[in-house]
């Protein structure tokens, strides 16, 4: 059985004027369904870039990204959108909520994009917000939520359609120790309860240690960290 997601010799480089910046230089790795991994590495090494590439947001310069053994970037625009909508959940480094909408509406957005009825999307969002412990903040806009709460809304939004893969880019980055701990705990719990595979980027070595699998990005390559 093929892995849930597999990266094969992924290269990614940016052009800054004449200068080519190689960020990923043939990174390869595979993750099975339901598996949970942490990804660490110094700042600027390309962790966010790597997540974007395997999350199908950004095509690699070279190499392939396979889901269930199929090349993700061979899909058409519409299938790709569908795939991002239902199979992948993103939590970005800076919690990117839509500032004009309430927590509930933000969490319901993937459902609406999936053309669910408003009632159904909001019911699912409410359920998910309850799981992340925010049932008392449904009608707050992001500006009226604390950083940790915002991050939890982002998590609820990423998980609302039951994706198979969660990509979390430093979900605990700007949070205090205890709150970060709480979010992490939540991630682990969700992974166990819902069987969602997850890659969590973190700068916190203690949290990274606790993951079943630990990856490290160095010199544009993904290596298993022991």
């Amino acid at each position, binding site marked *: 059985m093929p892995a849930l997601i597999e990266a094969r010799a992924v290269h990614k480089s940016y052009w800054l004027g004449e200068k080519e910046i190689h960020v990923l230089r043939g990174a390869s790795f595979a993750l099975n369904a339901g598996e949970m991994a942490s990804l660490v590495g110094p700042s600027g090494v390309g962790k966010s870039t790597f997540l974007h590439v395997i999350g199908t947001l950004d095509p690699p310069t070279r190499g392939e990204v396979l889901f269930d053994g199929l090349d993700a970037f061979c899909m058409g625009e519409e299938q790709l*959108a569908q795939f991002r909508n239902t199979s992948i959940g993103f939590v970005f480094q800076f919690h990117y909520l839509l500032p004009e909408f309430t927590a509930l509406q933000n969490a319901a*957005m993937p459902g609406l994009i999936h053309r669910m009825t408003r009632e159904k999307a909001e019911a699912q969002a409410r359920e998910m917000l309850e799981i992340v412990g925010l049932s008392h903040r449904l009608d707050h806009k992001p500006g009226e939520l604390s950083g940790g709460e915002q991050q939890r809304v982002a998590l609820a939004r990423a998980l609302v359609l039951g994706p198979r893969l969660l990509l979390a880019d430093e979900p605990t980055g700007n949070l205090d120790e205890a709150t970060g701990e709480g979010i992490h705990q939540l991630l682990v719990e969700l992974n166990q309860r819902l069987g969602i595979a997850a890659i969590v980027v973190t700068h916190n070595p203690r949290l990274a240690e606790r993951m079943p699998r630990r990856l490290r990005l160095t010199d544009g390559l993904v290596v298993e960290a022991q």
Partner: protein
Amino acid sequence: MNLRWRVTAAAFVLFLAAGAAQYGLATWLGSATTFSRDAVTALSFGVEALGFLVAGFLLSFLGRGYRPLANAIASLAFGIVTFFVLRQLKPPSFSYDRFFASTGELLVWSLCAALGSWLLAMWGASLGMLIGAAGHLDGRFQYEWGIARTHLRLNRRTATVILLFVLIPPGVILLLAQIAADFDKMRRAGGHLTVRLALMLGAIVVVGLALAGRALLARSALARLQPGQRRKRPATVVMTGISIAGVAVGVWALTVVLSVMSGFEADLKHKILGTNSHALLLKFSNDFSEWKTVLPKVEAVPGVAGVSPFILNEVILSHGQTVTGAELKGIDPATAGAVSELPRQVIAGELGWITSPQSIPSSVVEPHGDAAKQLEGPEYEQYLQDTLKRRQEHPEEKGKMDPEAVKNLPGVCIGKEMSHQLRAWVGDIVNVLTPLGEMTPTGPVPRSRPFRVACILYSGMYEYDSKFVYIGIPEAQRFFKMGDNIVGLELKFNDVDAARALGRRVVTMLGGFPYRTKDWAELNRNLFSALKLEKLAMAIILTFIVLVACFNILSTLIMLVLEKTKEISILKSMGARDASVMKIFVVEGLTIGAIGTGMGLLMGLATCSFIEKFGLQLDPDVYYISNLPVNVDGAQFAMVAAISLCLSYLATLYPATKASRLSPVDGLREE
């Protein structure tokens, strides 16, 4: 064969089909219906444009995208084919110098065909893209609308504000119109303040004070806030407001000007058809003595409402020392009312007196009738006073002629302007002179006869009022020595706008040649085509205002796209399709356009009613109309709305397409 060539070939075939449909429809409509030529042109080219639009729409599915290049190649090929087909068909030229269009003209037309097909196909393709031509169809836009609403800051409060903005200015204009009308009435009634007027003025003062107070309160509340508490308004919101206002102003100007021009046109038509019939039945020969047998046949033709014989000739009229040229028309006063408004144009005397001159009184005849009531103003009063006085002081050439002979002189009706020029009133004797006189050994001598003025007519058209004089048919026949001949029959139809087709029907019933008809539009072609051209030019110029306003929409949307790149990226990372992102901005631009259009239409409607009620004065000597006319035409308003919405839609395409093509990571980098 790869996709591009398949699309090109399909596009070419579809364009050809649309072009053929145009030609076929134009030919068929021209022969099988009673539509006017303009209507046929508009309909057939409308169908062709729709064909291009649909072609582009379908092609966007085949090509899974806009495919501008493939379409352009097909359009070019279509243009070339059009050129050669046109050269075979030899269409008439627009220029007066030649009959068939020159090669240069054909080239321009073919170029227009090519360009039109390309632009319309791209337009159609945009519709295809919008509902997801790249995959399965999806015309829904619920969440897109929700997001667009946040971009426009459209919530219950702002919606109320916008509604107020849409309703208040037209309301104020309407109120002003009502007040102006009432004020006018009051002034005429002798200066008594009516209750309604007082109430309205009171209401205005109260509402104005309340609004001013409310604004002051809001200002002071705002001043008390800390700087940080004041709501920051991003530039795009201000720009949105400006765009709405721009569209509103454009639509307003367009509707008002077009309504006024339609008013002029309708007024002109009304006046022309007041004096003239809908069509003339003529003969390709000088002998129309069988008219008494033709008349009942024509009357029996379905669609014909009235028939009356006429004779027309140029003469010279003199009264005392004054001389003027005139068109002398012999009519039958009994049936003239069935083909024109002549009997209702009488301001003094009676039309019937031209055949029974014995009834013309020798005393002073006062003005009467509805037409006289239209005439107002110091100038008319002065004229009337002078004329009546003169008439009283000089009862026509007393002593010169035997009063019994005067009584038996035939009657003539003249226009108000001519009466003014000749200083002749009802009962006066005028001399009519025709250059077509007898041949004598010393050469031709003009023939002249005295007539007695039987009535004064007022049509409102200076030309008619100063040129036309009417006498009875038998008198005219005798005067011009025509025997029992006439020039032709005047016809009136049940439907004015079908005059040409009904005229053809009459001729067919009479067996064709040597009979022929000329309808009113043909007889006044210069006037109406000038008016139409003017209206078209006006519409085009004013559409530019709307166009500029749509550029406002364009720049507002570009700003919004730049402002919202982050949001677009997030939506895309959550699985929003390109078409969805496009929909957001298209819906947004259309909302701006729709609000602006609605506002402009209401303003236009209110302004038209203002003009109608208030009655803007015009110089009647220049325009032959005392008030600025307006004609509120629903179809015209709908047309303006459609133009404005189409332009708004087009303005959204560039920013919306740009936004849809942003990559999900474009906005994720920025803080």
